[in-house]
Protein backbone atom coordinates (compact mmCIF):
# COMPACT_ATOMS: atom_id res chain seq x y z
CA UNK A 1 0.00 0.00 0.00
CA UNK A 2 2.80 2.44 0.93
CA UNK A 3 4.63 1.57 -2.27
CA UNK A 4 1.49 2.27 -4.31
CA UNK A 5 1.05 5.63 -2.56
CA UNK A 6 4.68 6.59 -3.31
CA UNK A 7 4.34 5.49 -6.92
CA UNK A 8 1.23 7.64 -7.33
CA UNK A 9 2.90 10.80 -6.09
CA UNK A 10 6.23 10.27 -7.81
CA UNK A 11 4.42 9.63 -11.11
CA UNK A 12 2.34 12.77 -10.59
CA UNK A 13 5.53 14.82 -10.30
CA UNK A 14 5.67 15.25 -6.50
CA UNK A 15 8.96 15.36 -4.67
CA UNK A 16 9.19 13.16 -1.57
CA UNK A 17 10.54 15.14 1.38
CA UNK A 18 11.56 14.47 4.96
CA UNK A 19 11.28 16.98 7.80
CA UNK A 20 12.28 16.75 11.48
CA UNK A 21 9.97 14.78 13.77
CA UNK A 22 11.16 16.66 16.84
CA UNK A 23 10.37 20.36 16.63
CA UNK A 24 10.56 23.37 18.99
CA UNK A 25 7.19 24.99 18.17
CA UNK A 26 4.17 22.97 16.99
CA UNK A 27 1.22 24.75 15.37
CA UNK A 28 -1.04 25.80 18.24
CA UNK A 29 -4.27 23.91 17.68
CA UNK A 30 -6.86 23.96 20.44
CA UNK A 31 -7.54 20.23 20.56
CA UNK A 32 -4.33 18.64 19.27
CA UNK A 33 -1.55 18.02 21.79
CA UNK A 34 2.01 17.42 20.62
CA UNK A 35 3.81 15.27 23.21
CA UNK A 36 6.83 16.96 24.83
CA UNK A 37 10.21 15.43 23.90
CA UNK A 38 12.99 16.92 25.97
CA UNK A 39 12.55 20.69 25.78
CA UNK A 40 10.96 20.38 22.32
CA UNK A 41 7.95 18.42 21.01
CA UNK A 42 7.19 15.47 18.77
CA UNK A 43 5.30 16.69 15.72
CA UNK A 44 1.53 16.31 15.65
CA UNK A 45 1.84 16.86 11.91
CA UNK A 46 4.66 17.87 9.49
CA UNK A 47 2.61 20.87 8.37
CA UNK A 48 4.79 23.83 9.39
CA UNK A 49 8.09 22.44 8.05
CA UNK A 50 6.46 21.36 4.78
CA UNK A 51 5.02 24.83 4.30
CA UNK A 52 8.48 26.30 4.82
CA UNK A 53 9.66 24.07 1.98
CA UNK A 54 6.80 25.38 -0.17
CA UNK A 55 7.87 28.92 0.70
CA UNK A 56 11.42 28.00 -0.34
CA UNK A 57 10.05 27.09 -3.78
CA UNK A 58 9.99 23.29 -3.64
CA UNK A 59 6.77 22.92 -5.64
CA UNK A 60 4.63 19.78 -5.26
CA UNK A 61 5.84 17.84 -2.22
CA UNK A 62 4.70 14.81 -0.24
CA UNK A 63 5.82 13.04 2.89
CA UNK A 64 4.96 9.84 4.74
CA UNK A 65 5.78 10.58 8.36
CA UNK A 66 5.20 9.39 11.89
CA UNK A 67 3.05 11.81 13.86
CA UNK A 68 2.31 11.96 17.56
CA UNK A 69 -0.71 13.09 19.52
CA UNK A 70 -0.84 12.92 23.28
CA UNK A 71 -3.87 11.26 24.86
CA UNK A 72 -5.39 9.95 21.62
CA UNK A 73 -6.17 6.27 22.02
CA UNK A 74 -9.27 4.47 20.84
CA UNK A 75 -10.51 2.06 18.20
CA UNK A 76 -9.48 4.58 15.53
CA UNK A 77 -6.69 6.45 17.29
CA UNK A 78 -3.11 5.72 18.23
CA UNK A 79 -0.84 8.25 19.95
CA UNK A 80 1.77 7.39 17.28
CA UNK A 81 0.54 6.95 13.73
CA UNK A 82 1.56 7.36 10.11
CA UNK A 83 0.48 10.37 8.10
CA UNK A 84 0.63 10.97 4.38
CA UNK A 85 0.76 14.70 3.80
CA UNK A 86 1.00 16.48 0.46
CA UNK A 87 0.92 20.03 -0.87
CA UNK A 88 0.28 21.40 -4.33
CA UNK A 89 0.98 25.03 -5.21
CA UNK A 90 -1.45 27.01 -7.38
CA UNK A 91 -4.34 24.76 -6.28
CA UNK A 92 -7.25 24.90 -3.90
CA UNK A 93 -9.16 22.32 -1.86
CA UNK A 94 -11.36 21.39 -4.84
CA UNK A 95 -8.29 20.25 -6.76
CA UNK A 96 -7.42 18.01 -3.81
CA UNK A 97 -10.90 16.45 -3.87
CA UNK A 98 -10.34 15.50 -7.49
CA UNK A 99 -6.89 14.15 -6.68
CA UNK A 100 -8.30 11.96 -3.88
CA UNK A 101 -10.81 10.55 -6.35
CA UNK A 102 -7.88 9.40 -8.49
CA UNK A 103 -5.50 8.38 -5.68
CA UNK A 104 -7.67 5.79 -3.94
CA UNK A 105 -8.72 3.87 -7.08
CA UNK A 106 -5.02 3.92 -8.10
CA UNK A 107 -4.02 2.29 -4.81
CA UNK A 108 -6.78 -0.32 -5.07
CA UNK A 109 -5.78 -1.15 -8.61
CA UNK A 110 -2.09 -1.36 -7.68
CA UNK A 111 -3.08 -3.91 -5.03
CA UNK A 112 -5.08 -5.89 -7.57
CA UNK A 113 -8.39 -5.01 -6.00
CA UNK A 114 -11.84 -4.06 -7.31
CA UNK A 115 -12.90 -0.43 -7.71
CA UNK A 116 -15.23 -0.97 -4.75
CA UNK A 117 -14.24 -1.43 -1.14
CA UNK A 118 -16.04 -3.86 1.09
CA UNK A 119 -15.72 -2.63 4.64
CA UNK A 120 -17.54 -4.27 7.56
CA UNK A 121 -19.96 -5.89 5.14
CA UNK A 122 -20.73 -2.61 3.38
CA UNK A 123 -19.88 -1.97 -0.26
CA UNK A 124 -18.42 1.46 -1.00
CA UNK A 125 -18.06 2.46 -4.63
CA UNK A 126 -14.94 4.51 -5.26
CA UNK A 127 -15.81 5.57 -8.79
CA UNK A 128 -15.71 9.37 -9.20
CA UNK A 129 -17.43 11.67 -8.52
CA UNK A 130 -17.71 11.17 -4.77
CA UNK A 131 -20.34 12.87 -2.65
CA UNK A 132 -19.70 16.53 -1.79
CA UNK A 133 -21.63 17.66 1.27
CA UNK A 134 -21.25 21.04 2.94
CA UNK A 135 -21.03 21.19 6.73
CA UNK A 136 -24.18 23.35 6.76
CA UNK A 137 -26.09 20.77 4.69
CA UNK A 138 -24.84 17.91 6.88
CA UNK A 139 -26.15 19.68 10.00
CA UNK A 140 -29.46 20.27 8.24
CA UNK A 141 -29.71 16.64 7.22
CA UNK A 142 -28.60 14.92 10.40
CA UNK A 143 -29.20 17.33 13.32
CA UNK A 144 -31.82 19.85 14.42
CA UNK A 145 -29.13 22.57 14.63
CA UNK A 146 -27.16 24.81 12.31
CA UNK A 147 -23.35 24.69 12.62
CA UNK A 148 -23.45 28.21 14.09
CA UNK A 149 -25.99 27.19 16.76
CA UNK A 150 -23.93 24.12 17.58
CA UNK A 151 -20.80 26.26 17.98
CA UNK A 152 -22.68 28.72 20.17
CA UNK A 153 -24.01 25.92 22.35
CA UNK A 154 -20.52 24.37 22.44
CA UNK A 155 -21.79 21.07 21.07
CA UNK A 156 -20.36 21.22 17.54
CA UNK A 157 -17.93 18.36 18.18
CA UNK A 158 -20.57 16.14 19.83
CA UNK A 159 -23.03 16.58 16.95
CA UNK A 160 -20.24 15.98 14.48
CA UNK A 161 -18.87 12.86 16.17
CA UNK A 162 -22.17 11.29 17.21
CA UNK A 163 -24.76 12.36 14.63
CA UNK A 164 -22.92 13.29 11.45
CA UNK A 165 -19.63 11.40 11.01
CA UNK A 166 -21.10 7.88 11.40
CA UNK A 167 -23.47 8.61 8.49
CA UNK A 168 -20.87 9.85 6.01
CA UNK A 169 -19.21 7.92 3.19
CA UNK A 170 -21.72 5.11 3.36
CA UNK A 171 -22.25 4.16 -0.29
CA UNK A 172 -19.47 6.24 -1.75
CA UNK A 173 -16.88 8.46 -0.08
CA UNK A 174 -18.04 11.84 1.21
CA UNK A 175 -16.16 15.14 1.16
CA UNK A 176 -17.53 17.20 4.04
CA UNK A 177 -16.54 20.76 3.14
CA UNK A 178 -16.73 24.44 4.11
CA UNK A 179 -16.24 24.47 7.87
CA UNK A 180 -17.01 27.47 10.07
CA UNK A 181 -13.83 29.55 10.09
CA UNK A 182 -13.44 28.90 13.82
CA UNK A 183 -12.84 25.18 13.04
CA UNK A 184 -9.91 25.71 10.68
CA UNK A 185 -6.88 27.38 12.21
CA UNK A 186 -4.68 27.14 9.11
CA UNK A 187 -7.24 27.33 6.28
CA UNK A 188 -8.04 30.21 3.96
CA UNK A 189 -11.42 31.90 4.32
CA UNK A 190 -13.83 31.55 1.46
CA UNK A 191 -13.90 34.63 -0.76
CA UNK A 192 -17.68 34.57 -1.15
CA UNK A 193 -18.42 33.88 2.52
CA UNK A 194 -15.67 34.78 5.00
CA UNK A 195 -17.56 33.05 7.84
CA UNK A 196 -16.48 29.80 6.19
CA UNK A 197 -13.06 28.31 5.65
CA UNK A 198 -11.98 26.26 2.64
CA UNK A 199 -11.46 23.03 4.49
CA UNK A 200 -12.73 19.51 3.82
CA UNK A 201 -12.62 16.16 5.53
CA UNK A 202 -12.86 12.93 3.59
CA UNK A 203 -15.01 10.15 5.08
CA UNK A 204 -15.34 6.55 4.01
CA UNK A 205 -17.73 4.25 5.88
CA UNK A 206 -17.96 6.76 8.73
CA UNK A 207 -14.19 6.77 9.11
CA UNK A 208 -12.41 10.12 8.86
CA UNK A 209 -9.59 9.54 6.41
CA UNK A 210 -8.14 12.92 5.43
CA UNK A 211 -8.27 16.64 6.22
CA UNK A 212 -7.51 19.31 3.63
CA UNK A 213 -7.26 23.08 3.34
CA UNK A 214 -6.82 25.78 0.83
CA UNK A 215 -3.84 27.03 2.80
CA UNK A 216 -3.85 30.33 4.60
CA UNK A 217 -0.93 32.47 3.38
CA UNK A 218 -1.83 35.75 5.10
CA UNK A 219 0.84 36.19 7.78
CA UNK A 220 -1.07 38.67 9.94
CA UNK A 221 -4.22 36.53 9.86
CA UNK A 222 -2.22 33.38 10.65
CA UNK A 223 -0.54 35.11 13.60
CA UNK A 224 -3.95 36.22 14.89
CA UNK A 225 -5.38 32.67 14.60
CA UNK A 226 -2.36 31.18 16.37
CA UNK A 227 -2.86 33.73 19.16
CA UNK A 228 -6.53 32.72 19.45
CA UNK A 229 -5.63 29.03 19.62
CA UNK A 230 -2.92 29.80 22.16
CA UNK A 231 -5.36 31.73 24.37
CA UNK A 232 -7.88 28.91 24.11
CA UNK A 233 -5.21 26.32 25.02
CA UNK A 234 -4.28 28.44 28.04
CA UNK A 235 -7.90 28.65 29.11
CA UNK A 236 -8.16 24.83 28.92
CA UNK A 237 -5.00 24.47 31.00
CA UNK A 238 -3.04 22.87 28.15
CA UNK A 239 0.70 22.95 27.56
CA UNK A 240 1.80 26.20 25.91
CA UNK A 241 4.01 26.21 22.82
CA UNK A 242 6.60 28.80 21.84
CA UNK A 243 5.63 30.90 18.83
CA UNK A 244 6.61 29.34 15.49
CA UNK A 245 8.46 32.45 14.31
CA UNK A 246 10.53 30.93 11.47
CA UNK A 247 7.31 29.49 10.03
CA UNK A 248 5.45 32.80 10.28
CA UNK A 249 8.41 34.56 8.67
CA UNK A 250 8.45 32.06 5.77
CA UNK A 251 4.68 32.12 5.30
CA UNK A 252 4.86 35.49 3.57
CA UNK A 253 6.83 33.87 0.75
CA UNK A 254 4.59 30.81 0.48
CA UNK A 255 2.73 30.53 -2.83
CA UNK A 256 -0.99 29.96 -2.79
CA UNK A 257 -1.38 26.21 -2.26
CA UNK A 258 -3.61 23.42 -1.03
CA UNK A 259 -2.52 20.81 1.47
CA UNK A 260 -3.93 17.56 2.81
CA UNK A 261 -3.12 14.99 5.47
CA UNK A 262 -4.33 11.41 5.14
CA UNK A 263 -4.21 8.82 7.92
CA UNK A 264 -2.27 5.91 6.47
CA UNK A 265 -3.30 3.52 9.28
CA UNK A 266 -6.95 4.40 8.65
CA UNK A 267 -6.51 3.67 4.94
CA UNK A 268 -4.99 0.32 5.91
CA UNK A 269 -8.06 -0.33 8.10
CA UNK A 270 -10.33 0.25 5.11
CA UNK A 271 -8.25 -1.96 2.83
CA UNK A 272 -7.87 -4.74 5.39
CA UNK A 273 -11.51 -4.54 6.51
CA UNK A 274 -10.22 -3.99 10.05
CA UNK A 275 -12.57 -2.71 12.73
CA UNK A 276 -9.81 -1.46 14.99
CA UNK A 277 -6.61 0.44 14.26
CA UNK A 278 -4.84 -2.10 16.50
CA UNK A 279 -5.31 -4.68 13.73
CA UNK A 280 -3.18 -2.81 11.17
CA UNK A 281 -0.06 -2.07 13.25
CA UNK A 282 2.51 -4.50 14.57
CA UNK A 283 2.51 -3.01 18.06
CA UNK A 284 0.14 -0.82 20.03
CA UNK A 285 1.41 1.14 23.06
CA UNK A 286 -0.13 -1.39 25.44
CA UNK A 287 2.16 -4.10 23.92
CA UNK A 288 5.37 -2.15 24.54
Amino acid at each position, binding site marked *: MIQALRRFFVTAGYLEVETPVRIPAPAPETHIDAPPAGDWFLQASPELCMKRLLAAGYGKIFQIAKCYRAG*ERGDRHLPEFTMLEWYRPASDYRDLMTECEVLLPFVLQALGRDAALVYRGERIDLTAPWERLSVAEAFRRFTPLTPEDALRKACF*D*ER*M*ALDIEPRLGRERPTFLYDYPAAC*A*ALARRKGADPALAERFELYIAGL*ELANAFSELTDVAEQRRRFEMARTERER*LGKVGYPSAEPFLKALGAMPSAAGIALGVDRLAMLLADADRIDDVVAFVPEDL
Partner: protein
Amino acid sequence: MYTASDLRKGLRIKIDNDPYVVTEFNFVKPGKGQALYRCRLRNMINGSQFERTFRSVDTFESADLQEKKMQYLYQEEDKYCFMDNESYEQVFLTREQVGDAVNYLIDNIEAQVLFFEDRALGLSVPNFVDLVVTQADPWAKGDSVTGNQKPVTLQTGYQILVPTFIEEGEKIRVDTRTGEYLTRVKG
Protein backbone atom coordinates in the same frame (compact mmCIF):
# COMPACT_ATOMS: atom_id res chain seq x y z
CA MET B 1 -10.55 12.30 41.46
CA TYR B 2 -10.52 11.05 37.88
CA THR B 3 -10.53 13.01 34.63
CA ALA B 4 -12.15 11.76 31.43
CA SER B 5 -8.81 10.53 30.11
CA ASP B 6 -8.70 8.03 33.02
CA LEU B 7 -11.93 6.40 31.83
CA ARG B 8 -11.56 2.77 30.85
CA LYS B 9 -13.53 -0.43 31.03
CA GLY B 10 -14.05 -1.55 34.63
CA LEU B 11 -13.41 1.87 36.21
CA ARG B 12 -15.80 2.67 39.06
CA ILE B 13 -16.96 6.26 39.32
CA LYS B 14 -19.51 8.17 41.38
CA ILE B 15 -22.30 10.06 39.60
CA ASP B 16 -25.15 11.72 41.54
CA ASN B 17 -24.05 9.78 44.63
CA ASP B 18 -24.42 6.38 42.99
CA PRO B 19 -21.55 4.07 42.10
CA TYR B 20 -21.23 3.21 38.41
CA VAL B 21 -18.95 0.84 36.58
CA VAL B 22 -17.81 1.58 33.02
CA THR B 23 -18.89 -1.43 30.94
CA GLU B 24 -18.01 -0.13 27.48
CA PHE B 25 -15.64 2.62 26.53
CA ASN B 26 -14.55 4.30 23.33
CA PHE B 27 -12.51 7.36 22.46
CA VAL B 28 -13.83 9.48 19.59
CA LYS B 29 -12.48 12.70 18.18
CA PRO B 30 -13.97 14.48 15.20
CA GLY B 31 -11.35 15.99 12.86
CA LYS B 32 -9.50 18.79 14.69
CA GLY B 33 -12.25 18.78 17.33
CA GLN B 34 -12.10 17.95 21.00
CA ALA B 35 -11.74 14.45 22.37
CA LEU B 36 -14.95 12.75 23.45
CA TYR B 37 -15.19 9.71 25.67
CA ARG B 38 -18.22 7.53 25.00
CA CYS B 39 -19.10 5.29 27.89
CA ARG B 40 -21.71 2.77 28.78
CA LEU B 41 -22.24 2.83 32.51
CA ARG B 42 -23.94 0.38 34.85
CA ASN B 43 -25.39 1.53 38.13
CA MET B 44 -23.92 -0.81 40.72
CA ILE B 45 -26.94 -0.50 42.98
CA ASN B 46 -29.92 -1.01 40.70
CA GLY B 47 -28.19 -2.40 37.60
CA SER B 48 -29.66 0.21 35.26
CA GLN B 49 -27.46 1.05 32.27
CA PHE B 50 -27.03 4.11 30.13
CA GLU B 51 -24.71 5.70 27.63
CA ARG B 52 -23.03 9.00 28.17
CA THR B 53 -20.41 11.05 26.35
CA PHE B 54 -17.84 12.91 28.41
CA ARG B 55 -15.32 15.60 27.46
CA SER B 56 -11.72 15.81 28.53
CA VAL B 57 -12.56 18.61 30.99
CA ASP B 58 -15.05 16.42 32.90
CA THR B 59 -13.95 15.07 36.26
CA PHE B 60 -15.34 12.31 38.44
CA GLU B 61 -15.10 11.15 42.00
CA SER B 62 -14.04 7.57 42.36
CA ALA B 63 -16.67 5.22 43.77
CA ASP B 64 -15.04 3.82 46.89
CA LEU B 65 -16.20 0.28 47.36
CA GLN B 66 -15.20 -1.81 50.31
CA GLU B 67 -15.58 -5.46 51.10
CA LYS B 68 -16.35 -6.59 54.61
CA LYS B 69 -16.26 -10.13 55.90
CA MET B 70 -19.71 -10.97 57.33
CA GLN B 71 -21.58 -14.01 58.53
CA TYR B 72 -24.86 -15.14 57.03
CA LEU B 73 -27.58 -15.35 59.70
CA TYR B 74 -31.00 -15.94 58.24
CA GLN B 75 -33.49 -15.22 55.49
CA GLU B 76 -36.65 -13.21 56.05
CA GLU B 77 -38.95 -13.18 53.05
CA ASP B 78 -36.71 -12.00 50.24
CA LYS B 79 -34.18 -10.35 52.55
CA TYR B 80 -30.96 -12.01 53.59
CA CYS B 81 -29.39 -10.94 56.88
CA PHE B 82 -25.64 -10.73 57.40
CA MET B 83 -23.69 -9.74 60.52
CA ASP B 84 -20.28 -8.22 61.07
CA ASN B 85 -18.69 -10.49 63.69
CA GLU B 86 -16.67 -7.68 65.21
CA SER B 87 -19.17 -4.84 65.42
CA TYR B 88 -22.30 -7.07 65.42
CA GLU B 89 -23.72 -4.66 62.90
CA GLN B 90 -26.33 -6.31 60.68
CA VAL B 91 -27.26 -5.61 57.06
CA PHE B 92 -29.90 -6.97 54.72
CA LEU B 93 -29.34 -7.85 51.08
CA THR B 94 -32.15 -8.42 48.58
CA ARG B 95 -32.50 -11.63 46.60
CA GLU B 96 -31.28 -9.73 43.54
CA GLN B 97 -28.20 -8.43 45.33
CA VAL B 98 -27.36 -11.90 46.61
CA GLY B 99 -27.56 -13.27 43.06
CA ASP B 100 -26.21 -16.76 42.42
CA ALA B 101 -24.62 -16.82 45.87
CA VAL B 102 -28.07 -17.80 47.16
CA ASN B 103 -27.19 -21.38 46.14
CA TYR B 104 -24.43 -21.49 48.73
CA LEU B 105 -25.96 -19.63 51.69
CA ILE B 106 -25.78 -22.12 54.51
CA ASP B 107 -26.16 -20.91 58.09
CA ASN B 108 -23.15 -19.06 59.47
CA ILE B 109 -21.20 -19.13 56.22
CA GLU B 110 -18.73 -16.27 55.98
CA ALA B 111 -19.01 -14.13 52.86
CA GLN B 112 -17.57 -10.86 51.56
CA VAL B 113 -20.25 -8.18 51.47
CA LEU B 114 -19.56 -5.32 49.07
CA PHE B 115 -20.29 -1.84 50.42
CA PHE B 116 -20.56 1.54 48.73
CA GLU B 117 -20.23 4.07 51.55
CA ASP B 118 -22.72 2.58 54.08
CA ARG B 119 -24.88 0.76 51.52
CA ALA B 120 -24.48 -2.97 51.01
CA LEU B 121 -24.51 -3.77 47.28
CA GLY B 122 -23.62 -7.37 46.77
CA LEU B 123 -21.98 -10.46 47.99
CA SER B 124 -19.24 -12.89 47.13
CA VAL B 125 -19.01 -16.31 48.75
CA PRO B 126 -15.83 -18.40 49.14
CA ASN B 127 -14.67 -20.14 45.95
CA PHE B 128 -15.40 -23.57 47.42
CA VAL B 129 -18.37 -24.48 49.59
CA ASP B 130 -19.27 -27.90 51.04
CA LEU B 131 -22.96 -28.75 50.87
CA VAL B 132 -25.08 -31.76 51.88
CA VAL B 133 -27.05 -33.67 49.26
CA THR B 134 -30.62 -33.67 50.56
CA GLN B 135 -32.28 -35.46 47.72
CA ALA B 136 -30.87 -37.90 45.21
CA ASP B 137 -32.71 -40.55 43.23
CA PRO B 138 -31.14 -43.99 43.17
CA TRP B 139 -29.47 -44.40 39.83
CA ALA B 140 -30.03 -47.11 37.25
CA LYS B 141 -27.60 -47.44 34.40
CA GLY B 142 -28.94 -46.11 31.10
CA ASP B 143 -31.50 -43.80 32.70
CA SER B 144 -30.26 -40.73 30.95
CA VAL B 145 -28.28 -39.48 28.01
CA THR B 146 -26.10 -37.48 30.38
CA GLY B 147 -24.22 -40.73 30.90
CA ASN B 148 -22.24 -40.67 34.11
CA GLN B 149 -24.00 -37.70 35.73
CA LYS B 150 -27.31 -37.24 37.53
CA PRO B 151 -29.17 -34.30 39.04
CA VAL B 152 -29.41 -33.98 42.84
CA THR B 153 -30.73 -31.33 45.22
CA LEU B 154 -28.47 -29.76 47.86
CA GLN B 155 -29.38 -28.39 51.28
CA THR B 156 -29.82 -24.88 49.89
CA GLY B 157 -32.28 -26.11 47.27
CA TYR B 158 -29.63 -25.82 44.55
CA GLN B 159 -29.94 -28.47 41.85
CA ILE B 160 -26.66 -29.67 40.43
CA LEU B 161 -25.27 -32.46 38.25
CA VAL B 162 -23.01 -34.88 40.13
CA PRO B 163 -21.41 -38.26 39.35
CA THR B 164 -23.87 -41.13 39.65
CA PHE B 165 -22.12 -42.61 42.72
CA ILE B 166 -23.12 -39.65 44.95
CA GLU B 167 -25.90 -40.58 47.37
CA GLU B 168 -28.37 -38.75 49.58
CA GLY B 169 -26.83 -37.48 52.84
CA GLU B 170 -23.33 -37.19 51.41
CA LYS B 171 -21.41 -33.93 51.38
CA ILE B 172 -19.95 -32.53 48.18
CA ARG B 173 -17.69 -29.58 47.35
CA VAL B 174 -18.96 -27.05 44.81
CA ASP B 175 -16.93 -24.46 42.91
CA THR B 176 -19.05 -21.33 43.40
CA ARG B 177 -17.42 -19.52 40.44
CA THR B 178 -18.72 -22.08 37.94
CA GLY B 179 -21.53 -23.57 40.03
CA GLU B 180 -20.18 -27.05 39.28
CA TYR B 181 -19.49 -30.17 41.32
CA LEU B 182 -15.86 -30.58 42.32
CA THR B 183 -15.44 -33.59 44.62
CA ARG B 184 -17.03 -35.72 47.33
CA VAL B 185 -16.16 -34.66 50.90
CA LYS B 186 -15.62 -37.45 53.46
CA GLY B 187 -16.89 -37.17 57.04
